[in-house]
């Protein structure tokens, strides 16, 4: 009887530990913020936030996304691509100095953050064409 209780207690402890989301899952990323930013953000030589966001939206539509949300004041656009898989992106644009916009992109593929620089490079290449401006690397 006593052994049964201990086994039950141990089992539930294991189950609960499995359910509890770790801090790493909620807050963390595999890479440092500096590393992430090096490939997730670019600067463009324009002070026009509206035009930048409109270009972001049209680039996302070109890439097969459906927009989920857009907010001019906050400078964010979120969109989802469904193509047998699910890819979510949030792109933000905010002023950098007086004559640049800083564009930051985050992608999530299925249930994982995309932490491979290549897809972000592809996104900024497509965005450059839509904006008729060069994307500058930011340090």
């Amino acid at each position: 009887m006593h052994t049964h209780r201990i086994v039950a207690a141990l089992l539930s402890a294991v189950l609960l530990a499995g359910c509890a989301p770790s801090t790493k899952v909620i807050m963390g990323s595999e890479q440092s913020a500096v590393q992430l930013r090096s490939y997730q953000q670019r600067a463009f030589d324009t002070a026009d936030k509206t035009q930048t966001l409109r270009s972001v939206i049209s680039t996302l539509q070109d890439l097969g996304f459906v927009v989920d949300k857009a907010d001019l004041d906050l400078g964010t656009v979120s969109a989802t691509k469904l193509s047998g898989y699910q890819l979510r992106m949030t792109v933000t644009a905010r002023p950098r100095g007086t004559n640049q916009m800083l564009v930051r992109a985050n992608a999530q593929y299925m249930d994982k953050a995309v932490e491979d620089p290549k897809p972000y490079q592809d996104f900024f290449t497509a965005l450059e064409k839509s904006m008729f401006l060069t994307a500058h690397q930011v340090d």
Partner: protein
Amino acid sequence: MTTSSRGRPGTRGLLIALSAAAVLAGCATIPEDALTPTPDSLERRQLQSRRLDGISETSLLAASAGVLQDLGFNIDESETRLGVIVASKDRSAWNAGQITAAVALALFGAHYAVDKTQKIRVSLVTRPALAADGTPRADAQVLRITIQRLVWNVDNQLSRIDSIEDPAVYQEFFDRLSKSIFLELQAI
């Protein structure tokens, strides 16, 4: 005789396990071309876009919201300053062919999850058309819609997630939009 068939059974098992792991890991990574324009991107853009003359962006958005409502969509989000309307509708995904197949399979004791519901999502985006000198025009707009669908089966599992690319769907939408614009312009 191939190398693998000469190997000990243990090695073979390991190889199978490793390749299975590689396949599973492959499933979790983003496809190579997910964020690159494909050869049919331009064609899709033409299918999904229309240029509309003689209307302001605000009036066009109002007319578009009307069409979406006519089609039974609910507006989820909008940011008119960026020309964006997001709408969706939930509908039954029952399909006679699938049900027949499921019944046939059930006769032999197999379970086949039939599609039950679907959510159709639309994002409708407008932008001012450009004049010859590259400046935005107040009285001509370009509108683009993108549509996607999520289907759940009777087990409440996502059974299908894809983009709608049937030209007839877009044509139907733009036909209705033309009528709605006419009504919108009449009201002014």
